[in-house]
């Protein structure tokens, strides 16, 4: 097993608050890793640190053997880490299809001049990308909405579109922040199958999720965080039955976990 993504003693302070505290996280090539923990545990912050949106206080992030700590987000994205945001960000005002095409940003081979002058090569590349975009939309079950605007879509479809945009950037690692939150059971079933299929495409997935049913059915391995620290890690059964994990979730309803 090779490590594709690793954080070493990763720490983030917001003023006095330590949101992530000396976290060591290992992600293996090809796995689906679940990152769980109660609200405010620091999960989204970890994603922010890995993808370069938040400056790291101390520690390092290593991706594919390279230190990417505090690199600019767009460079990290080009290196191969994509992210679907918790707030299901989409490009409002553009069509769903264009949303995905923006995601293809780094796969343009045609030069800017070729594209500006609309050479034959550029046009055929454009056609290929549209086909690929539609393929991704089909894969996520939202191809019939290709000409709609994301702001008019129901929540579940917006989440799916967020994943589609991230997938379009052809990542090696995909960070999913609460992909199934706010979905009804049938929608989250769909998301479960999508996540499995994403992995089949050879993408390593790290998923943050509160819905334990989703977590249990997709993750190979879990890491549980609380107050910015790693509580425990291991296979899903072990972690979800771990007494400290139950305790961390108590207050919020231990029934979810048990």
């Amino acid at each position, binding site marked *: 097993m090779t490590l594709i993504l690793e954080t070493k003693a990763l720490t983030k302070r917001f003023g006095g608050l330590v949101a992530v505290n000396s976290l060591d996280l290992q992600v293996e090539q090809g796995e689906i890793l679940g990152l769980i923990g109660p609200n405010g545990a620091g999960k989204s912050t970890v994603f922010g640190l890995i*993808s370069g*949106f938040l400056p790291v206080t101390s520690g390092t992030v290593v991706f594919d053997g390279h230190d990417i700590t505090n690199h*600019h*987000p*767009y*460079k990290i*994205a*080009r290196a191969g880490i*994509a*992210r679907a*945001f918790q707030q299901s*960000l*989409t*490009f*409002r*005002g*553009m*069509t769903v*299809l*264009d949303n995905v*095409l*923006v*995601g293809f*940003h*780094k796969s*343009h081979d*045609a030069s*800017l001049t070729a*594209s*500006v*002058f*609309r050479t034959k090569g*550029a046009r055929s590349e*454009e056609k290929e990308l*549209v086909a690929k975009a*539609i393929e991704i939309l*089909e*894969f*996520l*079950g*939202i*191809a*019939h*909405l*290709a*000409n709609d*605007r994301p*702001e008019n879509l129901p929540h579940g479809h917006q989440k799916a579109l967020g994943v589609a*945009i*991230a997938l*379009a*950037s052809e990542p090696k690692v995909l960070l999913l922040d609460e992909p199934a939150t706010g979905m009804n059971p*049938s929608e989250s079933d*769909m998301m479960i199958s999508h996540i499995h299929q994403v992995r089949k495409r050879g993408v390593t997935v790290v998923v943050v999720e509160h819905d334990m049913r989703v977590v249990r059915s997709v993750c190979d391995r879990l890491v549980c965080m609380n107050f910015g620290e790693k509580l425990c890690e291991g296979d899903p059964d072990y972690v979800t039955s771990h007494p400290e994990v139950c305790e961390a979730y108590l207050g919020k309803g231990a029934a979810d976990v048990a």
Partner: protein
Amino acid sequence: MTPSVFFQLIFNGIAIGLVYVFMASGFNLILSVTGIFFITFGMFYALGAYSTWWLTVQAGLPYFGSVAISTVATAAGGVFLYLVVMRKIRTGEQAMLRVLIASIMLVTLLTQVVLHLFGTSPRGITPIFKGHWKIAGVVIGLDRVAVILISVAILLILHFFLSRTRIGRGMRTVAFNPDVAALLGVNSEKVFITTIAVGLGLVGFAGGLMAPILGIDITMGSAGFMVLLVIILGGVGSMIGSIMSGILLGIVLAFSQFYVSAGVGQIIFFAVVGIFFFFRPGGLFGSPPPDPIDGVGSLTGSRIKSLPGRKTVIVPLAILVLAIILPQVVHNSYYMHLMILVVIFAVTGMTFTFGMRSGMINVAAAAFWGIGAYATGLLMVKGGLTFWQALPLAVIISFVLALILGGVICRFAGMSGMMFGIVFSSIVPVAFGTFELFGKQSGLTGIPGIENLGFLHFGSKASYYYLVLAFAIIGMIIMLAFTKAWTGRSWLGLGSSQKLAESVGIDPFGYRVINFAIMSVIPALLGTAYACYLGAIQPVTFGPFIGINFQIVAFVGGLGYLVAGPIVGALFMTFLPELLRVAGSYEPIITACIIILVIMFMPSGIIGSQDARLMAAWRWVSKPLRRAGTPVPVPVDREGAK
């Protein structure tokens, strides 16, 4: 420099700086609490000064009573404008931009009102405190000492008000986090009104306080532009930052005024802030503010054509044919002049829409228009070049300047970037008016006409019209080509959500600099021809209040329409004042009011608000003409339907 001169200048600088401290504190308070970019505050400074003058000199009231009344009156006036105009537009579609345009239009409006009420000549008030001390060769005027002491007292009261009173704490909570404030039950409407009253009262008070020392004239309102630099340097939301950098600006101005000229001081301060800003976007004391501009390019509700979408060539072609035959029909030379302006306005307005798609509110177009014109003028008058030799050089000069400025602005595109651009648009005319090279205020004269080029003969108005039209079309084609290329889609993504765009590998800085350079070089290109057309150019031709017209053109037509919007807007903006000629000297007031009304009630512009009707009409007209479009193939849904 002797020590006494040095200390004298420091002392004078502090006194001048206090003006900026008050204005910056007032504006900063309003900006950080309400999020309203109330750049009109500069006029409230002038209003405070004028009304103090009127109350003391004309009505014979005691000075301090007049200042008090003026302060209350400016505060009330500000609240009135907030309730009537700003409250409606501060949220909702394109709020940031609408507030910007409306508040600049209010500057125009209030300037006219002041001119009508108080006349054009500068006014003065005799100082209350006469006499001075002389300490080691430094002249300490009592009036200035009084001003400094009063200012310190007022700032302390303000600090006390913000930190100790209930409503003051409410203001700080709202500034810190509006959502939390709402949860805590802070009445934000009441907080907003108080903030506006306090902020503009402060500015009006400064006007009254400084009037005996600095004199009163209508240009006071433009001090607002320099205040933006103070805020960039001090940090949005930081009171101590405003105080420190306001005084710093005062001192820089005092020194430069003594040794060279105030204009040079402004330029130096601008350059210093620019360099500083490049390395520390948050300012000296503030933290980088959450960006209200992020997402400005997402035109929800309006119709951006999908990029690989269908094309209708008929409308642009018809407009082009019309534009070409027009000079053959219209021979009136004044109308030809207006048509030249329409073309310039349309394409420059288009650069604004073009920039906005990548999430930038570009306010520097007029400045680059001027840079193109001055570069051409200089190369021809002083360098002895012909127009066709000067043209490429002028374009290159503008392009390089655009890359440099773009480098600063795009590094932190957003609120501070926009403010920096606004200051740039006011600094460029200052630079033209300051240096001998540019002919100072009288500008460049005797710019020769364009030489004939082969079969192209220049001389008549129509020939210049055709040249400007050709340049405009080149500009439009460049913008359209980049919009259709993959750059266009990346720009749209950036404009819609910078965060998401970055997360798929789009470099916001690089993309925005390209966008900025293109949209700046096009006005410069039009400026080259304009210089020869006019034969003489002055700094005022390219001032910031001209620049706002370009944004209005884009907005009034409809921001969702890259080509049609600015054309409609340009026709509107050029012919509206013509139609209102009958109103005589009230014309500017009426025009400004109409524009403000359009901004308030037509958030998606003239075309946008009539979109459904226009589309229906267009379908009806084009039915027999329409070519088979190539809509994006929508595949049969397999997994989605359940």
